[in-house]
């Protein structure tokens, strides 16, 4: 579709509010030979139970239906792997279903669990996601990932998903980045930031203390993207428990309101037809009239530079939660930084910055925990977990990990979950001497964006502390 009906633009109206009760995650790594997938899933579940001081048995008693996010049966080499996990969690004979939407699988899994609770089908639902990407060597992994592009029209070309993504990067780089060295450095700063924040996260797979020069000198993957601009390939699991109001307050005294929405766009970027830019609440109809003048070549929307799926997910979620301006109304975000350049594209799609101006979110220092230019708290810190570049991309688990990370800030328990020496030791990782507390002080609202491939599926999950709801919510 390139035009939308009134019905399609309806802000979702749920039958009842849904709360995030708890969440947990396993260690993430490139390979975990010593554990089966179900062991990682149980690690995540145990952390979620412990977080609200419940035994696993107590927590399980609340669960009524289960939603399992697992992107690739190919990787796990086990069809109906969800049934294996469900059994090992001891949750039979409850209803369960597998969800797969590529890189957005984690977010979509929460979306399904959310609707189950909002509709009244379940008072409490489990959303669990995982991925096992160490069953094949990297080149075969790339082939499998490339199989999530169109098998007849795209995959035969190099069997390399990065290539299908990088054509978008190239277009954005030339049109909106104007091939400027300063823009290339801004991209590198995102990697430096996210790898650096990963150093404070015991779950993270790729903590690194690096500089912009290190990123610029890392091997070229596809110009202008280099190895350190790209996300990880990971193994691990994460889960959240969602519940209705009454049950949530039975389980914990501090649940968070949760809203999840979803958008989509064609699997092949090839098929994306030119259309008018759908506007977010903080944008005006006139503001993009001269986009093609300011950025020659930037007048085709979404073309190869925007993600319509992200824009639509944000449109619905902002309406549901009452968000007008994400930079003002949210205190932190976790974005799907598959590549540094797609991270910048997303800033624009979700209205953190207008189209064409994404880079200023980084260059202003707003995206940092502490603004490097002012020494003050960043206006809207992004990816304090380390994101997909620093923490992990265990695909089915990613979108869930992001939601847990955002929630821990709003709960004011980020430090507790990341400073714990025992956890660092359990994961066989060394806590850095300069470990820094990244808790966003006073965080009340946050959002996580879960994103598939070249933008085929995107979900937006907004978390709101119940004492700090916004006016004008749907």
């Amino acid at each position, binding site marked *: 579709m390139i035009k939308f009906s009134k019905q399609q633009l309806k802000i979702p109206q749920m039958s009842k509010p849904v709360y995030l009760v708890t969440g947990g995650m396993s260690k993430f790594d490139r390979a975990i030979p010593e554990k089966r997938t179900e062991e990682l899933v149980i690690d995540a579940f145990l952390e979620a139970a412990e977080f609200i001081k419940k035994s696993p048995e107590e927590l399980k008693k609340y669960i009524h239906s289960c939603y399992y996010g697992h992107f690739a049966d190919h990787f796990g080499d086990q069809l109906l792997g969800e049934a294996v996990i469900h059994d090992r969690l001891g949750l039979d004979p409850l209803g369960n279903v597998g969800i797969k939407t590529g890189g957005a699988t984690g977010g979509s899994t929460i979306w399904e669990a959310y609707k189950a609770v909002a509709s009244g089908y379940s008072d409490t639902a489990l959303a669990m996601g995982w991925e096992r990407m160490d069953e094949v060597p990297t080149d075969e*992994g790339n082939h499998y990932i490339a199989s999530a592009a169109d098998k007849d*029209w*795209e995959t035969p070309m190099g069997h390399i998903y990065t290539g299908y993504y990088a054509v978008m990067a*190239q277009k954005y780089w030339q049109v909106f980045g104007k091939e400027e060295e300063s823009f290339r450095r801004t991209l590198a700063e995102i990697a430096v930031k996210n790898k650096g924040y990963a150093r404070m996260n015991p779950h993270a797979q790729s903590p690194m203390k690096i500089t912009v020069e290190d990123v610029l000198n890392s091997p070229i993957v596809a110009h202008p993207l280099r190895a350190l601009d790209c996300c990880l390939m990971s193994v691990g699991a994460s889960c959240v428990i969602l519940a209705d109001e009454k049950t949530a307050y039975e389980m914990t005294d501090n649940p968070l309101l949760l809203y999840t929405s979803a958008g989509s766009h064609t699997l092949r970027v*090839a098929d994306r037809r030119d259309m008018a830019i759908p506007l977010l609440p903080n944008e005006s109809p006139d503001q993009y009239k001269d986009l093609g003048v300011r950025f020659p070549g930037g007048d085709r929307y979404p073309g190869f530079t925007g993600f319509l799926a992200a824009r639509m997910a944000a449109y619905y979620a902002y309406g549901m939660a009452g968000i007008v301006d994400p930079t003002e109304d949210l205190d932190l975000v976790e974005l799907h930084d598959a590549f540094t350049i797609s991270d910048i594209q997303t800033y624009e799609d979700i209205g953190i910055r207008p189209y064409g101006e994404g880079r200023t979110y980084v260059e202003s220092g707003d995206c940092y925990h502490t603004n490097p230019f002012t020494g003050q708290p960043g206006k809207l810190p992004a990816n304090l977990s380390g994101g997909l570049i620093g923490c992990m991309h265990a695909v089915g688990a990613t979108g869930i990990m992001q939601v847990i990370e955002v929630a821990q800030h709003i709960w004011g328990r980020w430090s507790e979950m990341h400073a714990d020496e025992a956890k660092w030791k359990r994961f066989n990782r060394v806590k850095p001497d300069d470990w820094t507390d990244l808790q966003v002080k006073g965080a009340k609202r946050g959002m996580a964006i879960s994103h598939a491939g070249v933008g085929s599926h995107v979900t937006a999950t907004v978390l709101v502390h119940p004492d700090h709801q916004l006016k004008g919510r749907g």
Partner: protein
Amino acid sequence: MTTQNRGTVKVENGRYRVTGNFHYAYPNEPIRDESGKLLGITNPADMTHIHAYGGEAPFFENLSNAKLLGTKCANPKCETYGSVYIPYRIHCPDCLMRNEEVDLTELARKGASVHTFMITERTGAFNTLEKPIRFVNVEFEGVSTILMGYLSIGEPKIGMKVVPIFQTKNPTFTIMDLSWVPAGTSAADLPEGFAF
């Protein structure tokens, strides 16, 4: 372990008739750590899938005839009536009526240009293209979509004019039978098996 007599398929009376082998079994091997402790096993797999092109078959068949086929919405009641699609779409994405086939070969020869591109040294398993691969996303005048392909000669640039070439000798009947070269390339320079 032999991999001879690989499977082939024919359709007779609307049914697949298969001959030869569609899979080969290999023994698995233990995976151990430095101390010799068993951690797992390898699971080799060698299988052939049987894949139907369905309504897109004319597109793949005609690449070997040096023809680039697209489709067009032919439903006057559709709000995007007349939109032209390549990749070949069997049905209009808006009205879902069956699209009409259109021959885009001449249009591609005259009016195709690079919308964006990418050069990469990295490939996944089973890649058959020479590295670095030069992906080009090609736009055509009057066409709603932008086709992904690969450039066989020269260095890509946004806006550069390109023309299609087709693997007419020993075609693979896949999208790989279509490639692109800069406009003005001489026939003598084309890769083995390809023609304008």
